[in-house]
């Protein structure tokens, strides 16, 4: 790893060296230097040349047909008859099906509800992403926001009510993702602490739970929620399927998050705990004031990373008949009036997932840098 880091560092230094003259007066010389640099980078050695040529070839094979399909030959408005005539993408399909893909079976006249839920969740996510706002009030905001979203979607206080099997699309994906991650994290902290506990029974139980959850595939967990839970728990069938799934997902994710948190706990030197003890702090005070603040700070980027993985995993909800974003997109192309425009539907969904995940990963990088800075200080 050091060699890679060294290489990256030297590249960064070179880049900075390059930028400096460019910022100065000698624009032409700097431009020439940059060109030379570019040429060396692309064709410096025969390996570089080969890679460059292969990349260009690949791009040449992929990009023009894609542009032709997605833009030049595409049909932007009209009916499926117009699309059948064209060789390109049928974006008119997305126009007709956008609401369905986003909100699935939610009654069209009430689409403002899931839309509001998306707005609320987006606002909460942005707030959560701002370290300045990491305060208790944020937790309260999440609680109010999610409970409010849930009641709004269900129409509990503002009839008509909408049963949760009619919910779907992006709001379901976001609700499941945020709620399960949000509830899973405190659970995971407890599990991680239990796993490091001195009490044998607690430790063994935590290890059993974590290892069991991590040994089961996600799909199996969903099947348990869908099929086993209603039979095992009295009155289980009365609990809503989405909630059943969310309970199991929370338990499942908490095992993974617990391992991340445990990684953070292990970075805290034992001396700190001893020092806290010497000061007369008990276990809980030590954990709350000394250990966790530092441990969690180190693992926040890893948690963001984990969260991105979980977001993508929510698409498996389709296997138990919950219409998440991906499932809604797939179903949208089975309408006989608009048959088989899977490519367009999947492109839209891929775009949405990309925005969410790319945003998340850029944020994670930014956060890592920021937290490292404060750490160093």
């Amino acid at each position, binding site marked *: 790893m050091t060699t890679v880091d060294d290489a990256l560092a030297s590249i960064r230094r070179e880049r900075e060296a390059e930028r400096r003259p460019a910022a100065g007066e000698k624009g032409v010389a700097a431009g020439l230097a940059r060109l030379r640099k570019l040429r060396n980078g692309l064709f410096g050695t025969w390996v570089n040349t080969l890679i460059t040529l292969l990349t260009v070839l690949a791009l040449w094979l992929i990009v023009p047909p894609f542009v032709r399909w997605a833009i030049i030959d595409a049909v932007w408005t009209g009916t499926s008859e117009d699309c059948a005539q064209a060789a390109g993408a049928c974006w008119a399909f997305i126009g007709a099906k956008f609401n*369905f893909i986003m909100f699935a079976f939610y009654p069209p006249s009430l689409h403002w509800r899931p839309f509001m839920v998306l707005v609320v969740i987006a606002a909460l996510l942005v707030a959560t992403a701002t370290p300045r706002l990491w305060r208790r009030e944020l937790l309260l905001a999440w609680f109010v926001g999610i409970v409010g979203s849930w009641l709004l979607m269900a129409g509990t206080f503002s009839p008509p009510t909408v049963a949760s099997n009619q919910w779907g699309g992006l709001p379901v994906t976001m609700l499941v993702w945020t709620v399960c991650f949000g509830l899973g994290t405190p659970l995971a902290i407890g599990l991680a602490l239990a796993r490091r506990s001195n009490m044998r029974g607690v430790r063994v139980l935590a290890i059993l739970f974590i290892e069991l959850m991590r040994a089961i595939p996600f799909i199996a967990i969903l099947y348990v929620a869908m099929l086993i839970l209603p039979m095992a728990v009295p009155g289980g*069938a009365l609990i809503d399927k989405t909630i059943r799934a969310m309970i199991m997902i929370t338990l499942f994710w908490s095992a993974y998050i617990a391992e991340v948190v445990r990684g953070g706990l292990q970075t805290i030197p034992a001396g700190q705990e001893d020092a806290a003890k010497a000061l007369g702090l008990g276990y809980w005070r030590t954990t709350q004031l000394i250990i966790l603040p530092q441990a969690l700070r180190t693992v926040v980027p890893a948690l963001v990373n984990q969260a991105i993985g979980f977001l993508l995993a929510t698409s498996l909800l389709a296997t138990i008949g919950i219409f998440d974003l991906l499932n809604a997109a797939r179903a949208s192309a089975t309408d006989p009036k608009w048959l088989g425009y899977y490519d367009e539907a999947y492109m839209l969904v891929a775009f949405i997932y990309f925005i969410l995940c790319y945003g998340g990963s850029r944020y994670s990088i930014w956060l890592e840098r920021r937290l490292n800075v404060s750490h160093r200080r």
Partner: protein
Amino acid sequence: MGLVDSVKPASVKQRVSRVLAASLVAAGALMATAAYAGPTLDKITSRGSIKAGVGTTPGFFSPDSSGRWQGFFVDIGRALAITALGDPEKIEFTSSSPQQRLPALQAGEFDILLSGVTITPTRALQLGFHFGPTVFYDGQGLLVRKDLGVTSAAELDGATIGVQSGTTGELNLADFFRKQGKSFKPLTIEDTRQFNAALEEGRVDAITQDSADLVGKQRQLKNPENYVLLPERLSKEPLAPAIAGGDDRWLELVNWTVYALIQAEELGITSENVDTFLDSQDPSIRRFLGADPSLAQAIGLDPKWAYNIIKNVGNYGEVFERHLKPLGWERGYNNIWTNGGLLYSPPFR
């Protein structure tokens, strides 16, 4: 798949005898009704809606742009909601994957599967599911390129045929060709979307699946007219509504809802002309549509139930024409018996 014959006649006979028994105890009709109500029907009545499991196959069940379920099986579900609850909208459709449909039915997640379940003895006797009448006679078909010049499956000697992995399709295919004394090369395809690609790129000469899927696939090919669905059916796939065991009355409501759709077509009653039949003098039509309420009262249903089904949903033929004809389906076996098909309703009396 297969072995349908051993199941169906027996159950039809049972149904007929049950109907006879029911008409014998018609005197205490309403009390009998209450006694008949089983766990599933109780749940449906207290919930005020039916929970139905469906799939997503174009023409059979698919959401339209406004998120409303449409399709052949969906209309049968709406008809059932009229029978059970008097309102075609009192049914919730939920799509589920083929692997989890039957377990979900067993777990009570659904009151009925309208997802096109093939009747088999394992499902009926080992798993304890009950089947309504066959509403769609499907079978494994072969979709071939037209330029092969093949008009029947027997001419496909030595052809490469794409089959979906993990289905009984390959077995049926092997059986068929062995019986014919011909050879073929199977190409197993994992992803259902790759079927079309394999056919378009000429990697296979034909693809095989249940014909319901093939008709949908053909429409999605670049030049659908260059392909033809061969007339042979390599397997029997009688698709029927499936329910969990233990609720006889619920099963009978399913049965007679389907029969009402078939009977209406046989009598020539459609959603458009149904009102003109109300003052018919034919006693069987009067009983059927509730102009003479004696039958409906005897069986504990709203006298207008069949009328409402026909008025709202249409007869079997109308449902077929509405959803499957546009996709290129011919009636074939799925025609009423008087027109050479297999659909036959017991009498309404």
